């Protein structure tokens, strides 16, 4: 999987590259708008991370140009302005996702992963991690032989974590998918819910499945994986 990062700020481009490489992506970086515009014509990419403010040519006009010539590569827009208008403008221009600066790397990686996975995902109705299983149709959650009662919100949280099993989930991504929030509230809402969920699915069981990665986010994974 090859990802193109078009970002003029060198340090930002550099840590994005490192993070994506750590996830197993091959990454090309480009610091200029005009260069970025033509880059996908010579190399096929699976996804593109595109900054809006660029020297030479701005990200939105690059994106519009690509979509005009029917280039459908998934694009994640990055913006320092980060307001609703720009988000709408970006999605209208043909972006697949949008992230405002400053962002958490874990969010960026999760979004790129979602973009490159799109389309080829076989959707099973029963999600399993070790002996924990969640039926998305009957909404029944079981660990081993025991049924677990969850509130609607806890269920959605667990469903999201199980869909991304084995991968780190940032708080912002969780807020967006589980709560439908497009802002970061100054609260510990996610931590409190994760703690409750852990109490229900992990406390009385071994091995533990739901882990906190300090400073980054949460991950639900089977032991030794």
């Amino acid at each position: 999987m090859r990802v193109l990062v078009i970002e003029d700020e060198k340090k930002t481009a550099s840590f994005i590259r490192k993070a994506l490489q750590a996830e197993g992506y091959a990454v090309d970086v480009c610091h200029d708008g005009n260069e970025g515009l033509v880059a996908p014509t010579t190399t096929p990419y699976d996804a593109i991370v595109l900054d809006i403010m660029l020297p030479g040519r701005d990200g939105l006009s690059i994106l519009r140009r690509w979509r005009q010539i029917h280039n459908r590569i998934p694009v994640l827009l990055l913006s320092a302005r980060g307001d609703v208008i720009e988000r709408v403008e970006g999605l209208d221009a043909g972006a697949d996702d949008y992230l405002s600066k400053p962002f958490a790397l874990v969010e960026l990686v999760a979004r790129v992963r979602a973009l490159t996975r799109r389309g080829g995902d076989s959707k099973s109705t029963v999600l399993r991690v070790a002996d924990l299983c969640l039926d998305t149709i009957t909404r029944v959650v079981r660990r081993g032989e025991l049924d677990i009662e969850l509130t609607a919100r806890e269920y959605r949280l667990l469903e999201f974590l199980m869909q991304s099993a084995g991968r780190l989930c940032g708080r912002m991504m969780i807020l967006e998918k589980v709560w439908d929030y497009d802002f970061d509230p100054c609260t510990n809402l996610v931590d409190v819910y994760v703690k409750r969920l852990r109490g229900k699915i992990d406390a009385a069981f071994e091995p533990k499945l739901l882990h906190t990665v300090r400073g980054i986010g949460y991950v639900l994974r089977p032991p030794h994986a």
Partner: protein
Amino acid sequence: MTIRARMTLWYSGVLLLSTLMIGIFCFDELSERRERLVKPSKGMEEILAIVLWIGLPAILLSIGGGWWLMRKALAPVATLTEAVRSVSDRNLNQQLPRTYNRDELDQLAEVLNAMTARLNDSFTRIQDFTLHASHELKTPLTVLCGETETELRDESLNPAERERIASRLDELRRMALIVNGLTLLAKADAGLITLNLAPVRLDELVQDSFGDTQILAEASGLSVTLQKCDRTIVKADAHRLRQLLLNLADNAVKYNQPGGSIQIGLASTDRTAELTICNTGPGITANVLSRVFDRFFRGDPAHNSRVEGCGLGLSIAQWIVSAHKGSISIESVPDQVTTVTVRLPVLESQRV
């Protein structure tokens, strides 16, 4: 024409009228006497009669005329006073009404307009400064957050190092939240944010937020009750209303006391939805109450040092409410109960 010239002209008119009146009466009296060839007698009575019949009406006319004159002259002052009274930081770009007749008051209005224009200019500069400052901070913050997170991903870190870096990242994220909040408010000030308005079931949002509040409050041992929740449809930006509700709920939890309680209610009429959130706690003293919506305002430093937050929550809440053409107010009885009331215009409601 200046007011001085106008007043002089009008008053000479009134005086002329009075003089004419006296002249006519005198002429009338004199010609009557000449006809009857009456010799003057009973001097006092004559004088009294002349004063009563000629002098008094002339005096009354002068008084009435003067009163009318002053009222007419001062009317523009009253208009101008009303106009100046309504000037605030929100409508500095509006000009005071002018008559363009170049009199003193028109000149005063012109000077006042020039002054508000200068003030408006300064305000805009401060707004622009905040907007640019918060914007400029984003690039270095992005780099710092990104690099710190990259460091944290290093598997070979020992727990102490990991904790140190994670705690640094926490503070950086807090800074990012503050910068984002500032950007939002600066943009709102400059009128750069458009809301995504659509009919929204406010009661459903309140129910949702009630659930979250219960969970948030549980950790602090607080009880939360939903007293009333009328079915209400408002024209609103659902994301911003969620933000508002969470913001207020979070405050009610943070500024509470052990074993305290929170009461949430939504009561709607045909026109207004009234959302109230009451919480027990130390409360807010009267002198602090008027400033709680100010940016970065912290009422009691001793109390707030243990409460985390970005210091912009209520400012953002106030902006969200006013952007929806509503109002927000806080009442507090220290050490008893603090009530936040939000009123929003309603599209449709149904009492339950």
